[in-house]
């Protein structure tokens, strides 16, 4: 039983880790606490749902659509709203992103109604010895790991990734070195949102969801990403995984409300 719980926790942890990475990226680069991260995940989930509903698109393949889409949404939000509170005290960014999250959730509610939706795609489990792993969770975890690794590589190897890291360390110095900081902010918020969306098909293949659910997400990823916020990106992800694993244990069978 304990082993099962630990493994469930680790599987979920990979997922939270990826979402928290997005949050941590936004906080690291802009010092903005993005309370609307959950609703962004929710939007990704709905996109996945509708793609599945209308065109039968494999939820995992739909990542190819949802991630760029949410990237754009993130960029738009940043350009219109978040860019104005980048330098402001944390109260402003918290409130602003909270306002955005309420707006997103309620627009979703108006557009999609509050009915519960779910995507039935991969059912059944892999059985390995005494442990049973739900197939969808395992695939979700695999995806999460791949995407997180991809994000790491991006940040570490590519020029753009290095520019992002530079801005998160010192905005002024980055500016003086010729980096277009405003553009980096846009991109970082976009990537953060895309990472949130990436959590969608994976997490929602085992529970039904509705717009309100988007509001419950912020607590977990934000606290875990803030633990690691002062450290490196690696620190944030590991903090997220460990907190997810420990929080999952007593509730491993019940989905978030």
């Amino acid at each position, binding site marked *: 039983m304990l082993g099962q719980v630990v493994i469930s926790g680790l599987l979920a942890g990979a997922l939270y880790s990826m979402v928290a990475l997005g949050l941590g990226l936004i906080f690291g680069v802009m010092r903005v606490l993005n309370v609307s991260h959950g609703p962004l995940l929710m939007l990704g989930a709905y996109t996945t749902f509708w793609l599945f509903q209308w065109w039968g698109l494999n939820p995992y393949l739909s990542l190819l659509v949802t991630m760029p889409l949410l990237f754009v949404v993130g960029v738009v939000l940043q350009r219109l709203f978040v860019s104005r509170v980048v330098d402001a*005290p944390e*109260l402003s960014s918290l409130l*602003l992103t909270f*306002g955005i999250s309420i*707006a997103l*959730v*309620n*627009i979703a509610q108006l557009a999609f109604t509050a009915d519960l939706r779910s995507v039935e795609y991969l059912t059944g489990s892999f059985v390995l010895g005494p442990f049973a792993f739900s197939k969808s969770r395992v695939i979700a975890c695999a995806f999460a790991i791949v995407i997180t690794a991809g994000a790491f590589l991006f940040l570490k190897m590519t020029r753009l990734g290095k520019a992002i890291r530079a801005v998160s360390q010192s905005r002024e110095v980055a500016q003086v070195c010729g980096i277009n900081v405003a553009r980096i902010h846009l991109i970082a918020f976009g990537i953060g949102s895309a990472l949130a969306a990436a959590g969608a098909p994976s997490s929602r293949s085992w529970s039904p969801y509705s717009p309100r659910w988007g509001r419950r997400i912020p*607590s977990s990823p*934000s606290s875990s990403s803030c633990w690691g916020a002062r450290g490196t990106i690696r620190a944030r992800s590991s903090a997220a995984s460990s907190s997810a694993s420990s929080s999952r244990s007593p509730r491993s069978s019940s989905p978030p409300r």
Partner: protein
Amino acid sequence: MKRLALFALLLLLAVLALYPMRGTGYGVRFMLQLFMWIALAQSWNLISGLTGYVSFGHIAFFGMGAYTAGILIVKLGWPWLWASLAGGVGAVVLALVIGWPCLRLKGPYFAIAMLGLNEVLRVAVSYFEGLTGGGSGLSLPALYASVPIYYAMGVVALAVTGLAYVIVTSRFGLRLMTIREDEVAAEAMGIDTFRYKLYAFLLSAVGPGIVGGLAARDQSYIEPISVFPLIMTITMIVMVLFGGKGTIWGPVLGAVLLFTLQEMIWARFIYLHQLLFGAIIITVVLLMPRGILGVLQQKYHLPRTI
């Protein structure tokens, strides 16, 4: 000029005191809730408007007060007035327990810690199910007491506003403000910033605690989601921002305007209500972070006691 203002204030208080005799049931409940929001907003102002330390889970004190009072009423049969006062005490104790470690954290970390507090309390309530009724909530014996509660809420709102006035015009208040202006310099000038922050924090918990107890009595029912909602903290904050953070009448103005607006919208556009609220939050944060009175204060060099 000052005497005129004082006279106007007393007149207003007299009108409010006599209102329940002429007002409708709805009117009394409206005013009662307005007083509650004034008390909440003003209390938040005491810690966050003055010291700049954003308390993002302030509603926790409201919930604490509600549960303390609720439990005392249901399990021990206390009269609601004393139970509500005890709610205030409970909130202060909570503030002490939370503030002692958390006020040592800096800016964003304090905000997140307070955010987490809400969630912790919600879970704690579920955990102590025997005492609190857990997720299914706590029901109080039915009692129609809108009018006395109206007066009680009004007194608390008045008291907290009076407290704000006393603090802002005292050196204690000045020292709180130095924490907001420049904490390092304040420390260097001999101000024990931790102690001052703690005092402000404790004082800011009393109002919500008592008001929470009164609200519990008024609703005759409490459940975790209704007394620890983040949206109430946000509402408090937006009211203060809108009216003017750090001023005395700002929170009052903000509460009056926003609460009235909310009631009007809620009555007519139920579905758009929350969306509009989100839009209001965004507008206030982006366009008027200093608030109405804050802007006026700067432009016309108004005294700090505005």
